[in-house]
């Protein structure tokens, strides 16, 4: 295989990957605007499924619950990940490896195990029945790993000598953080927040076990899907996918903006 043909094969593989990943998503969005959802050709546009969805009261409550879990998880995961990433990169302590291992461990534990173990723990040991709060805590353990990856990747480009410089001029650690570190590195933190928010917002396998009877969008969708796929599910999928891609564009811009690099 010579160089050119290898290149061509790789371009084809990449294109096929995007088709594989985005084909089903784009098709669902297309179908959500069609009257006949089984064989929607030729296209017959309608907004009926979307307006039906907006009138469903149960979806409103579920949306609010999902947003609450996403927001709580986003805050917790971003806070812990940011603190840990700063400590790891700034102080280069021998404990760094151990801490990074603990923070990234959830990546190597199946989500369903995190779900059932936190269910058993909060129910039996903490005496806490399923709730949004419990689901937020369980999701936060998983999301912190992703948040740490995002923040570490971005913080690696920050020059910590800036902090030292501020300290030399007499700034206390908090002031250094507020006036130097935060203004420069906030895109990394917002990026970590977006990723952990989305993970928790859309999570099923961890949330499901910790929610008790509280509905979220993924659990409602799960219940609906058990009775076969329905038109309002297409509308839901279309809206969520659209929102995810909007936030993802923001994430991309934040990562591009990145942290200011001073060489």
């Amino acid at each position, binding site marked *: 295989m010579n160089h050119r043909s290898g290149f061509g094969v790789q371009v084809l593989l990449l294109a096929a990957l995007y088709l594989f990943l985005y084909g089903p998503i784009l098709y669902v969005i297309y179908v959500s605007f069609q009257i006949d959802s089984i064989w929607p050709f030729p296209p017959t546009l309608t907004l009926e499924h979307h307006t039906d969805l907006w009138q469903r009261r149960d979806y409103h409550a579920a949306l609010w619950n999902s947003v609450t879990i996403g927001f709580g998880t986003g805050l917790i995961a971003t806070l812990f990940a940011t603190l840990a990433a700063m400590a790891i990169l700034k102080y280069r302590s021998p404990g760094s490896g151990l801490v990074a291992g603990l923070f990234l461990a959830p990546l190597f534990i199946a989500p369903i195990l995190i779900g059932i173990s936190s269910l058993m723990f909060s129910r*039996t040991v903490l005496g806490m029945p399923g709730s949004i709060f419990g689901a937020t805590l369980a999701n936060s353990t998983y999301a912190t790993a992703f948040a740490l990856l995002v923040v570490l990747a971005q913080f690696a480009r920050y020059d910590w000598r800036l902090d030292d410089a501020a300290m030399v001029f007499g700034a206390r*650690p908090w002031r250094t953080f507020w006036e130097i570190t935060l203004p420069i590195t906030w895109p990394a933190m917002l990026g970590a927040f977006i990723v952990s928010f989305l993970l928790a917002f859309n999570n099923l396998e961890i949330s499901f076990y910790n929610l008790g009877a509280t509905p979220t969008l993924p659990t409602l969708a799960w219940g609906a899907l058990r009775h076969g*796929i329905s038109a309002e599910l297409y509308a839901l999928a279309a809206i969520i996918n659209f929102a995810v891609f909007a936030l993802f564009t923001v994430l991309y811009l934040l990562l591009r903006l990145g942290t200011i690099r001073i060489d």
Partner: protein
Amino acid sequence: MSNTVRFWLMVLPGTVFLVVFLLLPLIAIVVFSFWRTESYTLIQDWNLDNYATIFSHSAYLTFLARALVMATCVSLVCLAYAWPVAYFIVRYGGRYRLILLLSTAAPFLTGEILRVAALQQILGPIGVVNMALTRFGFDPIEALMYSNMATGTGLVYLWLPFMVLAIYLSLLNFDFALLDVAKITGAGPLRAFVEVTLPLNRAGTAIGIVLVFIPTLASATTSQFLGGPDGALYGNILARQFGSTGTWALGSAMGVVLFLASALALVIVWRAVGDLRRSGIVIKGAPKP
């Protein structure tokens, strides 16, 4: 205040949080796996019955074996596909690297259930592929609807981004000039890949395999909706213990078995990486890490 103290003060909140809400719960299910459940209540009555149940009923082991085969196949497909894709993005992506990479990861954040719903729309009996086939007078493809093939496709769809990401991050630190050296010294593209590129990115590759294998082994939702009546995997049976049957102690023991199976997979993959190093497939004379 010394830097060591500052370090531990800053990592303390997250560490305490993860110990309490991740590690203690995992330890708790190990403890509960030796208890028993009676009418939806856990009873502290130390015994090994749950493990005896799992290992004496062939049904549990069959589901575990199925999940192991599924996870192995899915990991291998992801591995074979992710390598050229990640390689291409790193080597030729240039200023578009980040957007190309993020585009492979974006669908992951839409959540498992919506991705499964989207796939059902494509693969199911009334999915667009089979509808199109019947429309144009062909026979529908049985393998696509409610089968292990469909579950496998769904799992590759869900977890492939992890493999791409792991190999991508590894290749970012790879010095492609080494390939020119290989070429000058007479190695063809295949030999250069097998003897230079792959060995030097073996850790990233191993991490990718494990990141795909572990969640796939435990998968429940995908097989529930794409696998059909005979498509249940270990994760489905595990989930059932915490749903309708309420046999939490048995479920905990199943969780522990799942965890041990994942840990075993991790060790095997790591050993394979080590063997790769010992087998001498490294650049001769290079210092061994």
